[in-house]
C-alpha cells in the first residue's frame, strides 16, 4: 500500500470517569489509524470501553487525553464529516423513511428536486425503494437499520462510524445486512469504523481488526484479515483468524 496520510488518526486516547468509588480509567493510550476506504472493526470484551471510544471518535464525548484527527482536522464535536449508525437506530419517529434519509440534506441550500433525487438513490442503495412514505413504527429492525445507514450516507461523511449496528436483529437478518453493508462499502468507497462484540462479524467484514482489552480499556493488538471476500466460515484463514482473535480476547 502506498504511503499516505490516514483518513483517521486515533492518538493516545484516554478517558477517566469520576465513579462512585473514585476515578475509573475507562480507556488508556488507544492509538491506531484508519486508511482511506478501509473497513476497520473494533472488537473486545464487554467493559473494554468500545462504546466510549466510539463516542469519543464521533465527537459526542471529550477524551481526557489524546485526540482524534479526521482528514487533518481535530474532531471536537459531531459534524457531517462523521456519519453515525447506532444499534438502536435512533430514527426520527415523526418523519417518514424519506424524511429521515433526507434530514441531513435539508440544509446547505440543497434544492428540493436534488434532495428528492438523492433520497431516491439512497433508498435504492439500501433496498428500501417503495418504503419512502412508511413511518419507522411500521418497519422491522433490519429495515430501520437500512434507513439509519442511508440517512448517515446522505451527507457524504468522510467516515462512517457504526456502533454494534446489527446487534439488535435476528441472526438471519444480520447475515443479510452484513452482505449488504459490504456491497455498499464497495460501491461507495466509504471508510468504515465498525464496533462489535461479535468476533465472527469482525472477521467477516474487516480489512483490519482492532482488538481491545479491559481494565483499563486499551488496545491489545491490530490484526490484518487476509481472507478473500466474500468470506465464508469455511474459507482458509477464516477459522485461523477467528481463533487468533478469540485467544486475544
Amino acid at each position, binding site marked *: 500500500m502506498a504511503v499516505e496520510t490516514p483518513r483517521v488518526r486515533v492518538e493516545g486516547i484516554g478517558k477517566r470517569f469520576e465513579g462512585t468509588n473514585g476515578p475509573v480509567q475507562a480507556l488508556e493510550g488507544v492509538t491506531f489509524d484508519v486508511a482511506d476506504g478501509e473497513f476497520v472493526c473494533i472488537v473486545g470484551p464487554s467493559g473494554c470501553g468500545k462504546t466510549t471510544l466510539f463516542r469519543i471518535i*464521533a*465527537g*459526542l464525548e471529550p477524551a481526557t487525553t489524546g485526540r482524534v484527527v479526521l482528514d487533518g482536522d481535530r474532531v471536537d*464535536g*459531531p*459534524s*457531517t464529516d*462523521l*456519519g*453515525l449508525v*447506532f444499534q*438502536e437506530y*435512533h430514527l*426520527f*419517529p*415523526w*418523519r*417518514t423513511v424519506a424524511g429521515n434519509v433526507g*434530514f*441531513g440534506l*435539508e*440544509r*446547505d441550500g440543497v434544492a428540493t428536486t436534488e434532495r428528492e433525487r438523492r433520497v431516491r438513490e439512497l433508498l*435504492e*442503495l*439500501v*433496498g*428500501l425503494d417503495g*418504503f419512502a412514505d*412508511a*413511518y*419507522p*413504527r*411500521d*418497519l*422491522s429492525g*433490519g*429495515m430501520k437499520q437500512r434507513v439509519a445507514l442511508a*440517512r*448517515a450516507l*446522505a*451527507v457524504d*461523511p468522510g467516515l462512517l462510524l457504526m456502533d454494534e449496528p446489527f446487534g439488535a436483529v435476528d441472526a*438471519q*437478518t444480520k447475515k*443479510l445486512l452484513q452482505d*449488504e453493508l459490504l*456491497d455498499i462499502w464497495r*460501491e461507495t468507497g466509504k471508510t468504515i469504523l465498525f464496533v462489535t462484540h461479535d468476533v465472527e462479524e469482525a472477521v467477516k467484514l474487516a480489512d483490519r481488526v482492532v482488538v481491545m482489552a479491559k481494565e483499563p480499556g486499551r488496545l491489545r493488538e491490530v490484526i490484518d484479515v487476509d481472507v478473500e471476500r466474500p468470506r465464508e466460515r469455511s474459507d482458509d484463514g477464516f477459522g485461523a483468524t477467528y481463533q487468533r482473535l478469540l485467544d486475544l480476547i
Partner: protein
Amino acid sequence: MAIDVSEDVDHATDALGGSVADIDARRVVRGLGGLLAFLLVWTGASLTQPSYVLPSPLVVAETFVAQAASGEMFVALGNSVLHWIPGAVFGTGLGVAAGIALAWSPYLDDVTSPVVRVLRPVPPLALIGFAIAWFGINHAGAAFIIAVGAFWINFYATYGGVEGVSEDLLDVARSLGVEGDLALIRTVVVPASLPEITTGMRTGIGRCWMLVVASEIFGVAGIGRRILRASNNLQVDVVITYILVLSLMYLVVDVAFRAFQRRALAWR
C-alpha cells in the same frame, strides 16, 4: 444493486377492521343506555323537589330552546368566545414557549425556578384584582384570567415533553449538520415532544372553558355571567341551560382538537 427485503411491513390493524366497528357500535349503545338512565334518575329526583331546587330535564330543555330562540344564548356565547379565544391562544402560546425555553436551557431554568415555584400555586381567580387593574372589566381582563390557567398547564406539559427528548436523537441531528439551539429546537425538540405538547394544549383548552365562568365573576358579560346572574335569581333551569352550553362548546372544541392531534401525530 438489488437487495431482497425479506421482512414484511406490519399491517396489524387491517385484520381487526370488522371487530373494531362492532366494538364501536356496542360502546354507542352502552353510552346511550347510560345517558337514558341518568335522565330517568334526574326526572325521578326532580318530581320530589320544587323546581328552584331541581327542575326536570323537560323544563331545562324548554328553557334551552327559549334561550336559543330569543338569541340571548348566542350573545352570551359570543361574548365568552371573545375572551376565551385570546385567553386560550396567548396562554397556550406563552406556556409552550416558556416550557421549551426552560426545559432546554439549564441556565434559564435555574434563574427562573424560584419565581416559577412562587407563582405556580396562585389560582387564576386570585389574580382578579390584577385583571381589573391592568386590563379593566372587559374582554382583555377576562382573557388574562383564562390565559393564566392555560399557561401553567401548557408550561408543565411542554417542559416534561422537552425534558424527555432523547439525547441520542439530538446527537444524530448534530451529526447531520443541525447547528445551534434554535435549529435543534425546530428540527428535533418540538416534533419529538409534540405528543406531550398537544396533550397539554388539549387539557388547557378544556380548562379554559371552565375558567370562562371564573373570569366573568367580576362583571364581564358572557356565559359565566349569565350563570352567576341566574344563580342569584334561583333560576336553576337557566343555570343548567348555560352549563350545557359550556359542555357543548367544550365537546365541539375537544373533538376538533383531537382530530387535529390525531393528524399531527399520525406517525405514532
